[in-house]
């Protein structure tokens, strides 16, 4: 009689495997929850860090978008010998003729004039404020608005009337425009008519006191040359306009014109977001590692506790492979549980924080997918040794040595 025939081998069906893998977790819920908690914390930390970083970046980009990236500025530069190269007075109207340029405004720094609360303030206490002549439609171009009062108009531009930039108002201690309120500019009183909100794209304006071009020439000895020209171009023509700007502004001396795109700085800032993520991701990884040790620990205890179950299953016909798969699946499930909870918590934290900051909530796919994958890998690695131990246990030892 031959005795080498193979009666057959069976694989567990997925539904049976799921039932086996969840049995241990269902019967020891608190323990399973606690051991998954470590992984959950790690994944939550990682998801929240990546999510917050992405959301704040999105917030900044949204702000940039709102401010517009089509603002170009041309400022007076320096000549080879170190002197200032004035922009021609005709520079602004010339630039307005560049194809695709929508609006052109300018400001001109009034040299030698300071702005003070009154005539008795020592003239050395300038507060770093500048006095600038400003054109009449400046505000929409630099994307700012009035915090209080009115801007200059064709009439007030002729008269000793001033508008304060956001920082200047703060430094002068003025937060409100009262009728008849005056400040002392270049040795005479100027009536205050408005206060601006911060201009993110033109921070020079924040620390400036703005007066009309005619008034500046009339009362402050201004030479009429603009020092900064602000222009908005059609989005698709920004680069073309950028190239033409220096030549158009000052055809005689194009190298004496500095052209810049202020939104570049913000874009760079947005790109730089996440520079500190590494540290927090590292902390998240440590939490994950601790979670992995927790899962491994629980699984080893579980194998010790369930010796008789393992023995019984072997007696019922389970192979070593069946036992190994059961315990490995349980560990994977623990990891997955932690991962899913972690992603949920991390995403919620991101959403809540982003909401308070009025950012759009963005969870990068690599954050949640990575979190779940990492937790599965951790479950597998942490469960491997316990599962192998369970599978190695001989049925007689498991059933008779308790």
């Amino acid at each position, binding site marked *: 009689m*031959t005795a080498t025939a193979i*009666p057959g*081998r069976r694989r567990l069906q997925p539904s049976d495997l799921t039932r086996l893998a969840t049995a241990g977790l269902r019967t020891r819920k608190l323990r399973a929850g606690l051991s998954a908690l470590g992984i959950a914390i790690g994944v939550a930390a990682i998801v929240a860090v990546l999510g917050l970083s992405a959301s704040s970046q999105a917030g900044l980009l949204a702000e940039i978008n709102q401010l517009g990236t089509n603002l170009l500025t041309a400022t007076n530069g320096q000549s080879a010998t170190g002197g200032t190269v004035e922009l021609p007075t005709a520079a602004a109207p010339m630039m307005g003729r560049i194809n695709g340029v929508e609006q052109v405004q300018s400001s001109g720094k009034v040299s030698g004039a300071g702005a003070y609360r009154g005539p008795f303030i020592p003239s050395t206490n300038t507060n770093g404020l500048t006095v600038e002549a400003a054109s009449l439609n400046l505000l929409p171009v630099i994307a700012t608005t009035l915090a209080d009062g009115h801007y200059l108009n064709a009439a007030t531009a002729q008269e000793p009337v001033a508008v304060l930039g956001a920082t200047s108002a703060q430094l002068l201690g003025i937060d409100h425009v009262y009728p008849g309120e005056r400040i002392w500019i270049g040795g005479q009183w100027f009536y205050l008519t408005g206060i601006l909100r911060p201009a993110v794209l033109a921070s020079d304006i924040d620390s400036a006191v703005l007066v009309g071009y005619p008034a500046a020439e009339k009362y402050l000895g201004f030479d009429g040359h603009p020092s900064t020209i602000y222009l908005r171009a059609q989005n698709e023509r920004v680069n073309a306009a950028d190239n033409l700007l220096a030549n158009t502004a000052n055809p005689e001396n194009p190298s004496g014109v500095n052209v810049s795109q202020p939104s570049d700085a913000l874009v760079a800032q947005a790109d730089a977001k996440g520079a500190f993520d590494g540290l927090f991701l590292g902390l998240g990884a440590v939490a994950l590692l601790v979670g992995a040790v927790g899962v491994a620990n629980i699984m080893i205890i579980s194998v010790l506790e369930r010796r008789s179950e393992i023995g019984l299953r072997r*007696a019922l*016909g389970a*192979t070593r492979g069946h036992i190994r798969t059961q315990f490995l699946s349980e560990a994977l499930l623990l990891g997955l549980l932690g991962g899913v909870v972690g992603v949920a918590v991390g995403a919620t934290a991101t959403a809540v924080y982003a909401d308070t900051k009025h950012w759009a909530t963005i969870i990068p796919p690599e954050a949640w997918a990575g979190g779940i994958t990492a937790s599965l890998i951790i479950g597998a690695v942490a469960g491997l040794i316990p599962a192998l131990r369970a599978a190695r246990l001989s049925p*007689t030892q498991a*059933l008779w040595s308790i």
Partner: protein
Amino acid sequence: MTRTPSPPSEDTAAAADNGITIKGPGAPVLDIDDVTKTYPGEPPVQALRGVNLTVGPGELVAIVGPSGSGKTTLLQLMGTLDRPTSGRVRITGLDAAAMPDEDVAYLRATRIGFVFQQFFLAEHATVLDNVADGLLYAGVPIGERRLRALDALELVGLAERPHARPTQLSGGQRQRVAIARALVDQPAIVLADEPTGNLDQATGHAILSLLDQLHQAGSTIVVITHDHAIAERMPRKVEILDGRIVADTRSVREESS
């Protein structure tokens, strides 16, 4: 190799598929041939010293001996839970010692049922699922497992409470669940290790009556016990001492059947 689930009623056919020659009706279900088992150690322990035993289909056999006589080792070898140091153990003609582990496991899944002194029931699962687990590793789908588990519960007189938890049952009822689990795949042989060891005398008697009843219905059952009183009730009594069979007696009453 055959991969079709083979209900034990078709065992002969399945075995024939595997190229096994089954001797006519009455071929031994269990055939132990000059088996020894030595546990390594200092000094090595010789648990079995040349055991020969044949159990035919439909027999009810008691293996009785004091503790340390080797009866548990014999059960482990009969149940293919361990391999002999020498000799052969054949279950329905298949030599377990010559098979890889996976196939021995499948042999257990389909042809051997176990009943243990400690019942070993899963407390979080229902009675029905505990019994149905007896078919889990034989590759039977869950629906059929539960149907057959109900049948098995009927056999042991517990059909009314399939959804109870083992913790809600008495010791005797738990052992009935364990017996149903052993029977659910209609194994060629049921091995019971001190099945009444954890029960009081009355309950124990009820369990023995149940085994008797199952035997009458055609099951092949081997009961391992240290209790001669239990062994006396059985139609065949195999006494084991110091790793050897010292007596093998059949009661005349059962010889005729």
